[in-house]
């Protein structure tokens, strides 16, 4: 089922979704675009390349409150914070970011203990994927094509959207998407030409080139294992690193968190907050021992986690090539150039 509307009717679509629940969509802000909960249907803006912060916040917010407690009172009086989630619509997510949700699913709900917060937020949410505009060149930092993700890859979306000039086409991908779409009666049916355009666009997306191509993930994992003890290599690539952690905060697949108690006067909240392996005390033990006191050890952890450990553990690379870490690094460290260095151009060729 391919439906359509026009870009000028976007507020109408936004308003319809807001009526059904919570709408989270790209909004233009001073520094650039970000996903925000929409309060005014006119805020939604689809003329963007990608957001600064990844949409992982929709399922893994920077702060997730677990329990409220009062100091000096018994644990029996502490109260878990309920998650009262309305149906949520995550609107305008680029294909590489949609892929990140699937990678995170494996970690949070697909293996071992299920993380109830991630799972409940995922269940409550319908994802509107949105193809990149292939009339523009890919951003220099992006390499999702390297990782097998098409610029118009509908996989993982519940509804997938392609924009053609002033027309926005929406296609149902999953039963969840279908259930929602049938309720959006003001959308009209797309023409046969538009259906062809949509299908061609998706196919074309797999050939839309970003920075690099041809990567063998298993081989990369092995290369990083082999290079782990090469302190010279890691020192060299991390010489400018501020260990600031911005790469982890903007990353759609970074999931490290801290669990901390925040008490103000006697009122407290146990919550999880984003954390980063780039920080010195991330691994500081009570004994004073810390396995990663040097910047190079922490950058090594970050890079090896994404391109080696995660493959060993879950079979997938923990990266979708969105390019945010490279784009927002204050000292211009290019994560994929580290991979490039590490594998010494053996396993891919630069376009």
């Amino acid at each position: 089922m391919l439906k359509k509307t026009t870009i000028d009717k976007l507020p109408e679509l936004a308003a319809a979704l807001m009526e059904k629940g919570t709408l989270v969509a790209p909004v233009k802000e001073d520094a650039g675009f970000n996903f925000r909960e929409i309060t005014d249907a006119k805020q939604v803006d689809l003329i963007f390349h990608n957001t600064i912060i990844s949409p992982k916040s929709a399922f893994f917010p920077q702060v997730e409150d677990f329990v409220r407690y009062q100091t000096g009172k018994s644990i029996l009086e502490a109260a878990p914070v309920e998650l009262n989630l309305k149906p949520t619509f995550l609107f305008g997510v680029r294909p590489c970011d949609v892929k990140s949700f699937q990678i995170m699913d494996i970690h949070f709900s697909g293996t071992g203990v299920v993380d109830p917060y991630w799972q409940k937020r995922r269940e409550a949410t319908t994802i509107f994927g949105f193809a990149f505009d292939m009339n523009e060149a890919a951003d220099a930092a992006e390499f999702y094509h390297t990782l097998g993700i098409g610029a118009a890859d509908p996989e993982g979306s519940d509804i997938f959207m392609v924009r053609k000039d002033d027309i926005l086409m929406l296609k149902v991908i999953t039963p969840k998407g279908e259930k929602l779409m049938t309720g959006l009666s003001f959308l009209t049916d797309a023409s046969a030409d538009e259906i062809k355009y949509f299908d061609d666009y998706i196919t074309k997306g797999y050939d839309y080139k970003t920075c690099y191509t041809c990567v063998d993930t298993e081989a990369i994992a092995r290369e990083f294992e082999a290079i782990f003890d090469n302190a010279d290599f890691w020192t060299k690539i991390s010489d400018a690193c501020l260990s600031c952690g911005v790469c982890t905060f903007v990353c759609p697949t970074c999931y490290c968190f801290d669990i901390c108690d925040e008490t103000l006067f006697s009122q407290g909240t146990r919550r999880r907050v984003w954390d980063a392996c780039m920080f010195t005390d991330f691994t500081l033990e009570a004994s004073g021992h810390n396995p990663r006191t040097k910047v190079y050890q922490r950058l090594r952890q970050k890079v090896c986690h994404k391109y080696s450990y995660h493959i060993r553990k879950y079979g997938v690379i923990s990266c979708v090539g969105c390019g945010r870490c490279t784009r927002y690094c204050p000292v211009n460290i290019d994560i994929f150039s580290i991979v490039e260095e590490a594998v010494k151009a053996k396993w891919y060729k630069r376009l």
Partner: protein
Amino acid sequence: MTENNPYIPMPVEISKVIDEVDSHDIKTFRFTFLNKEDEENFKYLPGQFAELSIYGKGESPIGIASSPTQAGYVEFTVQRAGTIVPGLVTAALHDMDEGGKIGLRGPLGHSWPIEFLEKKDIVVVGGGFAFTTLRSLINFMLHEDNRSRFGEITVIYGARTPGLLLYKDELAQWEKRDDIKTVITVDKGDDTWTGRQGFVPAVCREVAPSPKNTVAVICGPPIMIKFTLPVFFELGFSKENILTSLEMRMKCGIGKCGRCNVGYKYVCSDGPVFSLAQLEELPRDF
């Protein structure tokens, strides 16, 4: 969000506090569950750990020191942290008395591989404070329901001074039994000490357990491990038959928060128990 939520601790009450050492910074806390069903659900084996949780202070991952054969309660031996890093949870716990209530999340991690240990001779080697989950294992194996499942049991346990030995009453009991060989040593004795003196590695060499159908379970400070392992290699133990337990900073304890990895393994959910053979496959990042 209470049901099946691995982040919400269950309430427990301190029913006993034992001051273990003469420096008074290591105590054993016995907890009883405030909800009967929590007690029933808390099924553990020696080697597992739990998060001790005090709202307003935080959580600490601590190995379980009691054995599941001790019904009705669970024990943790906790050192007051704070010489280098201020230990909020351990300090708060040390300041609590019987009747105090805290939270508990667990059991977490993998146990000592009981099935793998069955029908084998077991050599338990412990040093200093790192004896807690070994004590759990020993008491488990010594229990009348379990003793016949294991071959000969040898325990080699050392501390710096006699006053720093943990579980002194139990050590004395084990020494009296004939179904366990107990070798206690201290680095340096005092006026009252009539037992053995000497470092753990040297004592291991002296005791010289046979590697035949035997598994060594070794926990201790890094320096002890460093000098003990070569002794066991010399004796002919394979890396598959030497087990240890790792520590890393942890938060969630369930393999989600990304903190305690060594290579692709999370110490909390993939460990903390590893064989030496398994550790050799991991990068030296701990």
